[in-house]
């Protein structure tokens, strides 16, 4: 798929979702069971993204490398209530330093 086409489709859906929420009268989506599932969606997706971005390599095989150390450092930073940007920078630094030192 062409990059611009992918961007166009994804951004149209993102905007359409927001507009729909502003236009559609509240109904089905207000049901508590539906709300619980839609509320849990970001959690499931983000957890899956953390795992696949961190621990898989070419062909989706399990890989343990500098990225795992980076996530561990990020988690500690989050425990200590570090702001988003600092967490991201610490993650990048961890991997960069480990790689420069030839560890991973």
């Amino acid at each position: 798929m062409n990059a611009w086409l992918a961007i166009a489709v994804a951004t149209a859906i993102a905007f359409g979702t927001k507009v729909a929420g502003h236009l559609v009268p509240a109904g089905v989506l207000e049901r508590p069971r539906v709300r619980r599932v839609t509320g849990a969606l970001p959690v499931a997706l983000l957890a899956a993204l953390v795992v696949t971005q961190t621990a898989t390599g070419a062909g989706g095989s399990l890989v343990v490398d500098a990225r795992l150390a980076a996530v561990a450092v990020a988690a500690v930073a989050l425990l200590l209530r570090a702001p988003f940007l600092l967490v991201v920078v610490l993650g990048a630094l961890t991997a960069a330093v480990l790689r420069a030192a030839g560890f991973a």
Partner: protein
Amino acid sequence: MTDPPGPVAPADRRPVARQGLSVGLATGAYGISFGALAVAAGFDVWQACALSLLMFTGGSQFAFVGIVASGGLAAAPSAIAASSMLGIRNGLYALELTHLLGVRGVRRLLAAHLTIDESTAVAVAQPDAPRARLGFWVAGLSVFVLWNLTTLAGALVGNAIGDPRTYGLDAAACAAFTALLWPRLRSRDAVAVAVLGGLVALLLSPALPPGIPVVVASLAALLALRAPRATANPDRAAA
């Protein structure tokens, strides 16, 4: 902007505006990481900026470029699916915001575009509707302006530094997803959904093309259908 923020007393206006602006600053700053990651994933500077201008919902943008980073454009359908599912919550925010904001026409479309985690959080934290409206617009507009400026800066920096792995940019994506997930792990049920989602994605990754395991893992959200954990209820036991 001519939208009257409503009858907010001048003395009340400043704290709300300050809150909205500080949220804008904090969130806008991490547009740098988005811009850098987008070009590391293979998008050009224009495409990185288009994503921030037009999609304008951080989690979805990170998911979109993250999946393309690992699977290339062949994984674009999964990237679209994942970013769209992450964007569903904006639709839910909109349901709550729309009667609070009371806007029509073009302004309603603008309000829709600015409907994201941060603008909603600032709006619903206010004690009354006029302050909620002011908070929504200040937070939404300041995040929008800063997010787009910093995306451009990040994309230019990312372009200049060459191999993203040398600087740990691939690991920065992992850290970004961890930071986006973290504040959502407040309940035991949320942790259960996260563990199941992560496990499903990990087990499916060797067997399926990049991106698809993430989309399938979204089914873990169905765990939330279980009745809320039953707490000991002596009344019911007695009845």
